[in-house]
C-alpha cells in the first residue's frame, strides 16, 4: 500500500534520514522505533508529503505522492508529535473546525464529532477549553482530530509522550480497536519499545537516520539468538563490581541501573557461579540473578551499544 524507496533527508551536512526503505501493507500496524533524534519525525513528514525529501520516493498504491499528494492525503490521518490543537478553543470547537477543514458539514459533521468524542472518551468534556485538559486528554483529542475524515491510514508520531499510564493504555487500546474493527492501517512511531511490542505486527528500528533492523517481532528478536540477557539485582551497586564484569571475557555488554546490572553473554555460557564469585569478591549483596527473555530494548542495545532511552 505504502512504500518508501531510498528516502533521504539532509539538513545541511547532516543526514536526518538516510536511504530508508519501508513498506506498509493494508490492515497492518507497523512500528517505527528509535531514540530521540533517530529521524522518525522527519521520515513521517516526508511520508505524509509535508517535507520534500532530498532524494528517494514515497509511493502510495504505486503512485509517487511527491508529485501528486492529494489522493494520499485524502486517506491519511496524521497525528503529529506535538499537540496540534487550538488550546483556547473547546474540544468540540476544535473538532468542528478541523472537520470543516475536511469539508464535512451539517448533520454529517455533527455525527462525526459525536462519534470521535465517544471514541476518545471526551464526550463529557466536549465544552471545555483544551488548555484546561490534562496532557493525556490533549493527546487523545490530538488523535481524535486526525480521525474525523475516516482515514484508511493513521500515522502517529509518538502519540503517548509525557502522559499518565492510564491515558496511555487508553490510547493503545483505541489504536488496537481501530485496527481490528475497521481494518485501519497504522504506522506507529515511538521510542517506547513496550508500546511497539504490544501493538505492532512488524517493526522498523531506526538510529541516527539509519534503519538498523526490521521484521516481525520474532524475527527481530532472532538477532539476539546468539546471546542471552541476564539481569542482576542487588542491595547497593558499586563501581568495582561493574568493572570486573566488564573485564570478564564472557560478558559482551554491561548496562547499569540504580540497583540493577544487565549483561549480555553468549547463549551457551554458564555464568551464574561466576557472577556469584565476582559479587562476593567485590562485597556485593545479591538479591537475584535472572535469565531474561530478550526485549526490543535488548535488541537496540545489541545493535547500537546504547539504551533506547536516556
Amino acid at each position, binding site marked *: 500500500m505504502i512504500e518508501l524507496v531510498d528516502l533521504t533527508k539532509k*539538513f545541511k551536512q547532516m543526514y536526518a534520514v538516510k536511504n530508508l526503505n519501508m513498506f506498509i501493507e493494508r490492515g497492518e500496524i507497523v512500528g517505527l522505533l528509535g531514540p530521540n533524534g533517530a529521524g522518525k519525525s522527519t521520515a513521517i513528514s516526508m511520508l*505524509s508529503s*509535508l*517535507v*520534500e525529501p532530498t532524494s528517494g520516493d514515497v509511493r502510495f498504491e504505486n503512485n509517487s505522492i511527491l508529485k501528486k499528494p*492529494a489522493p494520499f*492525503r*485524502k486517506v*491519511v490521518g*496524521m497525528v*503529529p508529535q*506535538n*499537540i*496540534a*490543537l*487550538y488550546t*483556547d*478553543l473547546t474540544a468540540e*470547537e476544535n473538532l468542528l*473546525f*478541523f472537520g*470543516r*477543514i*475536511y*469539508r464535512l458539514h451539517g448533520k454529517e459533521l455533527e455525527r462525526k464529532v459525536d462519534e470521535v468524542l465517544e471514541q476518545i472518551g471526551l464526550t463529557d468534556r466536549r465544552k471545555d*477549553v483544551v488548555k484546561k485538559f490534562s496532557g493525556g486528554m490533549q493527546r487523545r483529542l490530538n488523535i481524535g*482530530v486526525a480521525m474525523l*475524515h475516516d482515514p484508511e491510514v493513521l500515522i502517529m508520531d509518538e502519540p503517548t509522550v509525557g502522559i499518565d499510564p492510564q491515558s496511555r493504555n487508553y490510547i493503545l487500546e483505541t489504536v488496537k480497536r481501530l485496527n481490528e474493527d475497521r481494518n485501519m492501517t497504522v504506522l506507529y512511531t515511538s521510542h517506547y519499545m513496550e508500546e511497539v511490542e504490544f501493538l505492532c505486527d512488524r517493526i522498523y528500528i531506526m538510529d541516527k537516520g539509519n534503519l538498523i533492523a526490521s521484521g516481525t517481532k520474532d524475527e527481530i528478536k532472532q538477532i539476539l539468538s546468539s546471546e542471552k540477557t541476564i539481569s542482576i539485582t542487588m542491595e547497593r551497586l558499586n563501581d568495582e563490581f561493574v568493572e570486573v564484569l566488564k573485564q570478564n571475557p564472557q560478558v559482551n555488554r554491561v548496562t547499569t541501573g540504580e540497583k540493577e546490572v544487565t549483561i549480555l553473554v553468549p547463549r551457551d555460557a554458564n555464568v551464574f557461579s561466576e557472577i556469584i564469585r565476582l559479587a562476593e569478591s567485590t562485597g556485593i549483596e545479591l538479591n537475584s540473578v535472572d535469565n531474561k527473555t530478550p526485549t526490543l530494548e535488548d535488541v537496540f542495545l545489541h545493535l547500537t551499544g546504547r539504551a533506547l532511552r536516556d
Partner: protein
Amino acid sequence: MIWHIIKKQGLLFWRNKQQLILLIALPIILIAILGAALGSGFDNESSPIKMKVAFIEQVEEQDQIEQFLTDLQEQVPSGVVDEIKSNIDMMAPITNIKAVLESEEVKEFLEITYMDPSEKSVIVDDESYTAIVEVPEGFSYDVLESMVFNNVISPTLLITYNEEQQVGTSIVSSFFTQFQEQLTLGTFLGEKGIDLSAIDYQEVNGEVISINEQKPVSASAYYTIGMTVMNVLFLAGAVGYYAYYEKEINVFNRIIMANISRWVYFSGVLASGTIFAFIQSLIIFGFSWLVYGIRFPDILDFLVVTVAYSFAIGGLAVLLSALNYRLNSETITNFFMNIIATLLAVLGGSFYPIGDFSSLFQTLGNMTPNGAGLTAYLTLLRGEGIAGISDNLMYLVIFALMTVVVAALCFPKRGVSA
C-alpha cells in the same frame, strides 16, 4: 473555507481576553489620556486646543476707507464710486477679518485680544500668546486699491509667532496664510458675492480652502483617529502571531493535509486581517462617538476610508505571516510590534501632528498606511468629501496590493522552508 478560517480567528480573539483588551480597551484609554492631557475635557462644543492671539491695529480702518474713497473720486467715474461705496462694508479687509475671527467656528480655537500698539512690548514677553497679528499702517487702503485696480502690490499682515508653542503656531500660521491668500487673490470678495465690473479678478491658482468651511478638529477627535489607526497596526501583528503559531504547533500542516491549498489559507489570513481591523476600527470609533460625540459628517465616506485602511492592514498581516513562515521565526513580527509600529505611529502623526512642522514630515507621514488613514479621517472630519482624500485612498489600496504581492512571493512552498 476562507469563512471558517475567519470565524476561527474571531473565536480565538474572543477567547483571548488579554489580547482583546490590548486591541480595543487600550486605544480607548489612550484616547482618554491624550485627549485629557491636551484638552480641557471632552466637551466637544469647545475645542480643547485654544490659542491666544493678540490683534494690533496701527490706524483705524474707517479713516483709511474714507481716504481711499476720496482719492478714488479723482480716478474713476462717479457711478463706479457710488457702487463701491455701497459695498464698502463688505470690502473692508479688517472688518472682514474681525468678522471671521469672531465667528463661532474660529472662536472655538482662537481667543482674540484687541490691543493698542503701545501694548505690544508687553505681549511679546507674555508666553501665553501664540501669535501677535499687526495690521500695518495703510493696510486697508492698500487692500482696497489692489482690489479695485488689480495692483500687484500685496498688502501683508505682520505676524509674530511664539516659537515655544509649535503646534499652535503652525495652526495660527496656516489660518492666516490662507486668509491672506484669499485676500490677495480676490477670492475673498468673490466669497462675499460682490461683482464689480471695475474689478478684474486675478486667476485663482490652486485650491483655496474657505476658512469658514474648515472646521477645527478637537483634541479628542484627533486622538481618537490617531490611536485607532495606530492600534489597528497592532492587529496586523496579532494576526501574524496567530499564523506563525499555527505553523509552530503543526495546525498549518493539518490544514495542508486536508488538501486545502496554501493559497486558501493565505487568503484566510488576508481576509481575517482586513475584517478584524474593520471591526476593531468600528468599535473604537463607535465608542468615541457615543462617549465623546465624535462623529463623521458622512458615514459612507467614513466607511470607505475604514475599508481601505482595513485592507491595508490585512495586507500587512499577511505580509508579516508570510515573512514568519519564510524565516521560520516570529522575529519579524516582534520587530514590527515593538519598533516599526511605534515608528509608523509617530511618523503618521498618531501622537502629535508632526506633519504641521514641515511638508517633508507631512509627505512622509502620508506614506505610512496609518498616516494616510489619519489624514483621510481628519479631512473627512473637517467636512470635506471623498474627492479631498482620493490620494490617501489610492495610497492605501496600492499599499495593500503591494503587501499582498510581496507576501505571496515570500510565502514558502509547502509552508516549510527547511
